[in-house]
């Protein structure tokens, strides 16, 4: 089990499990609706600009860096 770090810091191609979402209530509920909630497995697909593209299950989202900093993940072993 790797250490916990913000999603925004992962390199493209990395898989991880969400540990915690440190955002306000509205944002947390919204992210939960998208499947971005604790225990979900995410994969960073593209991270070389300000925002990044992550895939969760069968869906893919573009997230701004600000949000990605608030999503804490454990890198897959």
């Amino acid at each position, binding site marked *: 089990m790797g250490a916990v770090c913000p999603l925004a810091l992962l390199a493209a191609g990395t898989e991880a499990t969400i540990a915690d979402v440190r955002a306000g209530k509205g944002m947390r509920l919204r992210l939960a*609706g998208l499947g971005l909630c604790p225990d979900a497995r995410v994969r960073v697909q593209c991270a070389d600009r300000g925002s990044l593209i992550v895939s969760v299950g069968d869906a893919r989202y573009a997230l701004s860096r600000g949000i990605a900093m608030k999503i804490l993940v454990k890198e897959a072993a």
Partner: protein
Amino acid sequence: MTGIRVALAGNPNVGKTTLFNALTGSRQHVGNWPGVTVEKKTGRINRSGHAIEVIDLPGTYSLTACSADEVVARDYILEERPDVVVQVVDATNLERNLYLTTQIAELGVPVVIALNMADAAEAGGCAIDRERLSALLAIPVVRTVGIRGEGLDDLLDAAVREAETPPHHEHTVGYRNDVEAMIASLVGVLEADKDLAERYPLRWLAARLLEGDENALAKVRESPVSPRVQALLSTIDPDECEAAMADRRYDVIAAVLPQVRTAGARGMNVSEMVDRVVTDRYLGIPIFLALMWGTFELTFAVAAPFVALIEAGLARLSAAVAGSIGPAWLASLVGDGIIGGVGSVLVFVPNIFILFLILSFLEDTGYLARAAFIMDRLMYAIGLPGKAFIPMLIGFGCNVPGIMAARTIEGERDRLITILVNPFISCSARLPVYILFAGAFFGAAAGVVVFLLYVLGIAAAIGSAKLFRHTILPGESSPFIMEMPPYRLPTAGTSLLHTWSRGVMYVRKAGTIILAGALVLWCLASFPFGVEYGSSASLAGALGHLLEPLVAPLGFDWKIAVALLFGFVAKEVVVGSLGVLYGAGEEGDALSTAFLADPGLSAATALALMVFVLLYTPCLATIATIRKETGSWKWAGFSVAYGLVLAWLLALIVGRIAPSFIGGA
């Protein structure tokens, strides 16, 4: 005959509107990006003795609504109580779609699942056991393929059956024991308020209260049971509850999924590969610009022969009119007024169709969402979320839907800025003006000039957004989250349908509003009796001379002043008006020849005019939409005034510096 109301709900971009169109025979706009539908649409069908009203709702990821279009969907289900909700589920993305199912089911309305895009899921090697899914969720599941109209009969049958069966079970997620106990005590308290109990499903309300949902809290605030509710809520931590409940929903889904789905092999799919390239750090923006440039080149090149054909036809027509209509005034009305005004707008129909065809194609493939992603950094720099770029791209077709598309933006100030800068995005109505002037004065470089005008429009929008952000609407931009839909190959049918329905709108506009404008202008140009048609002694001339001092610094004469005034109605009218005033219909001369013969018009003036038309006052329809979407005349008025000032200043600058680049003046 009994009436049944069927609401189509579901995540964004799962094909609700496609299904709606297939069910009702409507032609609502669809596209491959989340948020095409921002308003609910209604259609009616009769089926085996039932009058069925189908309501297409905007997409929503959850029922804890955060943007304007999501609120529309939630409030409809909650307040209007449809007889049955058909949740359209994207079969290729079951997990997230089922999250919404758990929330809809909690509302206590009968639900039917339309397992849509079933063909795409099957093609990906993913098999879904519908019967098992239906049994596990206690919700009927019907296989549909919206674009091919498969499964519609089964879906309607299931919907009617569910609507007519009295609800016999609550198919909701069971939460953790302590949460369930809390829900039970809350329901017990809420039951005392008969009014509330009648309007809302209490289990749902209790669950939302536990989550600390603002909307739910507001509903009980006025109730006599409010103090007791507050007392109960004060004992729990809403954040903890909310997390536990969301967890539980996904646990239920995680338990269901492996039983119903045999996933195909998941490798790197095509969408991911394409995205590697088009969202690349270095290639992304050049690819985007190249696509835009290609769009306008094609708009010119492909349409050119058709334009020539229509011009020749109109020339014949006006020659025939001049030769065969008796009274001179009638010949002038038909020739100068109708053919000159409407004809000069109709000439550009091929350009408009091609522009719409390309825009539809980009929209249907799913590239639009990528463009928003690519532009996010730039948008962030000006203080808007990347999502705000989509209304801009839609604005290229027409600003009215562009401004409405701003509803998908969450922050109120972000939304206002997005709306206010949209008119600077050059809509298709302005294209005839560019084509006419760029074609007349810039020859082979016309495509480049038009492209630069579009870029100037974007620059004006971006610059204004930055200005507004720092002055009248300060604040942080709300964070950017957007789904990247998988790329889909547009079917020829849908792309052509889009193009057709938007193109027809253009033609219809030519036949109504532009015709009316041309006739009014013809009268102004012909009266008082006896004056030479369209001369400065006519009423139009008087009006023009009145306005001339205002635009004289820009190098515009009275004819242009009149055309610009009439262009307020719709921007194509600028072309129509000039057609009337230059009497272009008369001898079959193309309007561009008339321009070149006019000593008052130089390439620099033409450029300044195009810049002015790009930026000045949005058309009436756009102003009305701004008024509607912002809810105030103040913003609509602001938009008019700001546009005029900006247009005047930039046209002045362009008119002054252009001669040193293109020579002449």
